[in-house]
């Protein structure tokens, strides 16, 4: 079965591209904000109560923004590409449910961990934070992996019947198969999961080095630098696997001008995408990579506390490029290996032209929002890093 793409005019198509770029930018920003999740897996580097509370308070002031970015990422996908929302969330049920569960547990943990009468004790909440930081990140990474390797579904747009697990040679665990079905790229999805986790963890350590007073907590800072070095090796291995996969795997493709919207497999598709548009994606990707590594060297191997600036900007660029090559240049961003023609493209899964247009006007607010977020961060940061005095002060609402 083939379906005609919903795009009927050029404006609609440009709006779809515009919204995919917004999704990509939000994806990149979300990856930056995962320093909170990464930082949550570093509590064991604290050797005493004060060090632990320094970590807790540093991350505890930022988790809401990560949370909100995730919510907006979901909301933007819902408004702009509702069919993706329907197929992926309803189909890969367990992946999203577990991610969701990991985030529900995280949200309260900061607030409740050090409060009296918290019922299940501090360590339970600490476990929730680790769970969110490890399971949440690996699953999100693996879910993004399926944007390249594909999923096991068929979808009929007229009857709206979604069937998950239709490939004869596939496994059906409502999404979790992405991690064990090696015939269909589980190795790539897992590598993506590990990559996102390792990247988040390094960002977490970089953030803490920047946000916690280096003079008051020299030992904690030194241990965090150690984490960065060890984690960097894991990151490099996962990155090599992912890059190997991206360059060698057959990618899903379609011709944006073909009214039938027929999807086919194309060798080296993602490499072609990196090189298209004057190789701008590739240049941005490499720039992101260089910045990320530079940050790691500055704060992981060197003594600077400004590594997060470089690695943070780097991860945003990398994130944007990953989403761009997954969905633009005639690439189905949510492919199906069970039935190529069921694959979702930005054209056949998008909202109506009218809705995208209205939402495009609303998106003018985004730079303004980014502006006040930056202003608030500056206001909070200009009084200096987190100190022992602030943690001990009963009026600072410290966790």
């Amino acid at each position, binding site marked *: 079965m083939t379906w005609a793409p*919903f795009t009927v005019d050029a404006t609609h198509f440009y709006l779809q591209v515009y919204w995919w770029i917004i999704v990509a930018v939000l994806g990149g920003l979300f990856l930056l904000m995962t320093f909170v999740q990464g930082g949550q897996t570093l509590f064991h580097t604290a050797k005493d109560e004060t060090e632990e509370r320094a970590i807790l308070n540093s991350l505890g*002031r930022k988790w*809401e*923004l990560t*949370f909100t970015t*995730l*919510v*907006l990422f*979901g*909301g933007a996908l*819902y*408004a*702009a590409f*509702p*069919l993706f*929302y*329907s*197929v*992926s*969330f*309803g*189909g890969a*049920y367990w992946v*999203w*449910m577990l991610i969701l*569960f990991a985030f*529900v547990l995280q*949200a309260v943990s*900061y607030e*409740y961990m050090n*409060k*009296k*009468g*918290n*019922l*299940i004790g501090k360590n339970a909440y600490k476990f929730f934070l680790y769970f969110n930081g490890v399971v949440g990140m690996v699953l999100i990474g693996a879910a993004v992996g399926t944007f390249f390797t594909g999923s096991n579904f068929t979808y009929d747009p*007229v*009857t*709206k019947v*979604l*069937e998950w697990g239709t490939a004869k040679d596939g496994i059906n665990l409502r999404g979790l198969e992405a991690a064990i079905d090696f015939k269909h790229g589980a190795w790539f999805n897992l590598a993506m999961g590990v990559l996102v986790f390792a990247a988040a963890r390094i960002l977490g350590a970089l953030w803490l080095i920047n946000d916690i007073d280096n003079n008051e907590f020299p030992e904690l800072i030194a241990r965090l630098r150690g984490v960065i070095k060890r984690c960097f090796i894991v990151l490099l291995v996962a990155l090599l696997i992912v890059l190997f996969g991206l360059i060698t795997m057959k990618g899903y493709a379609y011709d944006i001008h073909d009214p039938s919207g027929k999807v086919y497999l194309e060798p080296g598709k993602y490499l072609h995408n990196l090189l298209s548009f004057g190789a701008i994606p590739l240049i941005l990707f490499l720039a992101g990579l260089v910045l990320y590594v530079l940050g790691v060297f500055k704060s992981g191997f060197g003594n600077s506390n400004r590594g997060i600036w470089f690695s943070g900007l780097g991860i945003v660029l990398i994130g944007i490029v990953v989403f761009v090559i997954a969905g633009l240049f005639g690439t189905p961003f949510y492919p199906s290996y069970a039935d190529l023609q069921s694959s979702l493209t930005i054209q056949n899964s998008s*909202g*109506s032209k*009218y*809705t995208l247009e209205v*939402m495009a006007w*609303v*998106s003018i*607010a*985004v730079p303004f929002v980014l502006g006040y*977020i930056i202003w*608030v961060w500056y*206001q*909070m940061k200009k009084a200096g890093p987190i100190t022992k005095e602030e943690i001990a*002060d*009963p*009026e*600072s*609402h*410290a966790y």
Partner: protein
Amino acid sequence: MTLDLNMLEWARAQFAMTALFHFFFVPFTLGMSFLVAFFETIYVKTGKQEWKEITQFWQTLFGINFALGLSTGIIHEFEFGTNWSTYSWVVGDIFGAPLAVEGIIAFFMEATFAAISFFGWKRVSKGVHLASTWLLAIGSNLSALWILIANGFMQHPSNEFMQFDIETSRAVMTNFWALITQPVAQVKFLHTISAGYTLSSIFVLGISSFYLLKGKHVDFAKKSAAVAAAFGLVASIFVAVIGDEHAYEVANTQPTKIASMEGLYVGEKGAPIVAVGIPKNLKATEVTSNDEAFVFKIELPHMLSILGKHGFDAYVPGLKDLVEGNPEYGIWPLHKLAQIGQEARNDLRAYHEAKARGDEAAAEAAKRDFYSVVWQDEKTGLKITKADLIGYGFFANTNVDPNLIYPPVPPVFYAFHIMVGLGFWFILLFIWAWLAIVKGSFVENKLLQKLAVISVPLPWIATSFGWMTAEIGRQPWTVFGVLPTAESATPLALANVQATFFMFLTAFVILGIAELKILFTVVKHGPKGAH
């Protein structure tokens, strides 16, 4: 594909559970964020340390609640996709937009300024801090606005802002401005936020009364209670006034809901409101008079016509009329609506089949019939097309009992009446408390203080029942008249839904108890050293 009905009920139960649990925290956030802003404003204006203590104490309680409210909120955004994926695709073009706007406009405001308000006491100037506390409150209330615009669409999907698109087999948005300004959404928003203000005012009044009864923190309690009583008085009266307006909107857009709220099986001119009563759960097609529908009832004559239709003798249709039709008042029987809906579904299929075989003429004919006008209001010019009634095609299936076109009467009736009853009690309580505070007798009035303490859990019951009235009352639709609940769910194996149901239930029970324990600990400890 046939849908497992048992699974459907579990999916509904899961959504109901997560929504109700979330809604324990939402109204508190809506109101408490403003109360904290009031307290802080007084502190900044007077510069007195005691007001800073008051602000920080209530902010601590606010924060404990805020975290759980945020974390349970994200579930719904995801659940629309995971458990209601058909819904998400069929109406996502309209429903997704307000959610995305909520994210862009409101959530970031809430989250960003919450960071300053909670942690910035020593890091920013007094003015910036106060502004942040206000922006946090405004952001929270703005997110309620966008959510209730989305919910208003589910209650009243007017063809003024949407249309069923034959090309993509889904509903699409046609007018964003009409969507966000539609009266159903606006009254719902005002009713919900003012209910939140009432709820948090009762909370502050109750806790303050608790301290007064114990003879502790007297000055703190007096000052907190004074602000809460004033805010609560205005808010609780406003809830009732806008609630009346809300009921009027419901009466004119969701006739099955208003009839279920009042247990009105047979339509009447000059219909009464049942002040107190025990309704039976009957099949409307078998009922012949409204008297047999109640075990017992006390009525206020003509009130439903007056409030719902703004006319002393105005006709209000009953459930029986809505199923069987009533030609005298131009009410179509369900089977007629179902037949038109079925025709729309046939047109949709014919259109796509014709397109697939390249028969443009047949496709065009099907499309013309799909959008043909079946009813037009001579006065307003409002048109209804076959496409608008596509949802009713579900009831063309002879296996579907026509009595399922309205929700079960007893739960909707009780939820609504208990909510209204409690609402009147809150007004009385606040009038009393406010007068006592003005006269300076509040500190001595032990009876009033005890009643205030006992009343603390009541607004949570009222808001939960209000939500149940709205959501159970909308059944059997997710989007009223457009998309039946039975056609909205993700086709999943039952075990998946059950497993996630218990996963969330366990988490909620544990986190809910933890929240209450922490809250009680802080309250017991009192305002000094609350942090």
